[in-house]
């Protein structure tokens, strides 16, 4: 419905209304104003430039799992164990993040089916403190793996995070081996573990459970890497190559199996599950 956008934008009296958050969204890539409802129906992929926008945990779970899945309760963890305070208290930052998000923290788990195939899906929400991995994220990741082990089915994890949650200091770093204990258990139980890397996946998350999948799928254009680009630039003082740390670049360098459009993600996962855990009678 691009004609509509064009017409609307060409009307002078519309300019004041376009700031209405509920009606219009601006594509972060091509800056096109998109009709929000249409954008949502298009799974937060820009209708004009195909940019894959960042999405919340519930939207993602709804896109991937069949209706009627079971949303796991996020496990309780010790809150603010370090009594961390920078310019703001960590507890205040948490409160703020929770006010803007339907969930208590950045990792949600849905247990159900993908086109009829049993699967547990874990989703990291960049919208909650940059998706950062603290104890709540690590523990929820493990709970998802535990559920997959109990159900004897695949674990699909959609990653998105700037890295570890600094406000939990070393305890966030310890989530790396902790999550790895569980990916090993899935491996030993012969259960598929599939990682979907979305924009952005960096730092300690990439350097642990995001890179330990049996299959690695990336969304187009997603930033995926270990070190931040600014850190790299400051260290080596060189220009970064075109497309550096993007999904297609990682595909080229052998770190992901495939780059899959969001519209095809669900079907792709279902097909992979057929190979990995046997075909289910439809």
């Amino acid at each position, binding site marked *: 419905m691009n004609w509509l956008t064009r017409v609307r934008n060409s009307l002078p009296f519309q300019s004041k209304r376009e700031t209405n958050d509920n009606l219009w969204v601006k594509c972060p890539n091509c800056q096109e104003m998109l009709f929000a409802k249409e954008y949502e129906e298009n799974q937060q992929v820009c209708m004009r430039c195909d940019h894959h926008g960042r999405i919340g945990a519930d939207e993602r779970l709804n896109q991937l799992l069949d209706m009627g899945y079971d949303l796991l309760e996020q496990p309780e963890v010790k809150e603010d164990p370090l009594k961390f305070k920078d310019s703001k208290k960590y507890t205040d930052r948490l409160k703020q993040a929770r006010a803007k998000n339907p969930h208590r923290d950045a990792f949600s788990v849905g247990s159900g089916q993908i086109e009829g195939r049993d699967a547990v899906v874990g989703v990291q929400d960049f919208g909650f403190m940059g998706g950062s991995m603290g104890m709540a994220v690590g523990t929820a990741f493990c709970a998802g793996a535990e559920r997959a082990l109990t159900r004897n089915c695949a674990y699909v994890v959609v990653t998105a995070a700037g890295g*570890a949650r600094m406000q939990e200091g070393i305890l966030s770093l310890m989530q790396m081996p902790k999550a790895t204990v569980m990916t090993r258990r899935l491996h030993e139980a012969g259960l598929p573990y599939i990682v979907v890397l979305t924009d952005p996946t960096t730092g300690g998350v990439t350097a642990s459970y995001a890179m330990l999948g049996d299959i690695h799928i990336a969304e187009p254009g997603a930033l995926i890497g270990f070190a931040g680009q600014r850190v790299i630039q400051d260290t080596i003082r060189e220009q*970064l190559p075109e497309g550096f740390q993007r999904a297609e670049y990682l595909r080229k360098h052998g770190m992901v199996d495939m780059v899959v459009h969001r519209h095809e993600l669900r079907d792709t996962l279902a097909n992979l599950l057929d190979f990995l855990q046997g075909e289910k009678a439809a």
Partner: protein
Amino acid sequence: MISYLEFEKPVAQLEARIAELRSAAEGDDVDITKELERLEVKSADLLASTYSSLTPWQKTQVARHPSRPHFRDFVEHIFDDFIPLGGDRNYGDDEAILGGFARLDGRRVVLIGHEKGNDTESRIRHNFGMGKPEGYRKAIRLMELAGRFGLPVVTLVDTSGAFPGIEAEERGQAEAIARSTEACLALPTPMVATIVGEGGSGGAVALASAERVLMFEHAVYSVISPEGCASILWRTAEKAPDAAEAMRVTAQHLKKLKVIDRIVKEPVGGAHRDPEAASKTLGKAIGQELDALAKMSSDEIRRMREERFLQIGTN
């Protein structure tokens, strides 16, 4: 000649005065033995009291001290018959991470650790202890080797972090670190890790996912460098001392959080004042840990290691 840290200035001044007195008294008749003795006691007391109450940021500086003993010093003072092994069989050999067979008071082990180097030339050769994917893949290789031949693994962790560079990213720095952590967890033989200097982020945890984690008294271990944390959360690296405090980077804090199991004492004034003595204490501690673990079966060891990490965050 030892290089003094900023907070050691009072000690440095006293020691300079002692040296001055000594040279002035040479050939002189005046007896200054008493005065010298007094000053030396004072200086030693000052050093001891300074080091007994270091702030997290001061400890960070001690952990990074240019004369702090590194991997090769520990090899020299603690281990016998070190046989270095090299290469990841894929790409190359990374000298930021060294490893091989060694004996610790007769016990056969596979030894792996970061080496930072101790002068300009060696620092460049060892890339300041910042490992690349091939370094972590070498570590994986050696851990697998240790597992197959029933040898315990001893790691010495000392890195500001894994190397952030274009090629490191292209060769899968994140994957290499993840797999190295996994190799620690899969190891069927005992593993004792020690944070000897800096334990920087993923590059450290990749060699420290052991069932027993030791830490030198003035070492630091953190998810990000205090400078990095400060520049993100405070928007200026100058707040690094605050970040070091807030992140609880010291051995004393980490013991309380159960992230490490044992603190290894350093000589008064830090390991760099007496690397040999520091090494001996460390060697003894690692030996005791290995002996305790030697009685356990592979399954028990692996379960103990897994539980150690699963429990973090639940209590």
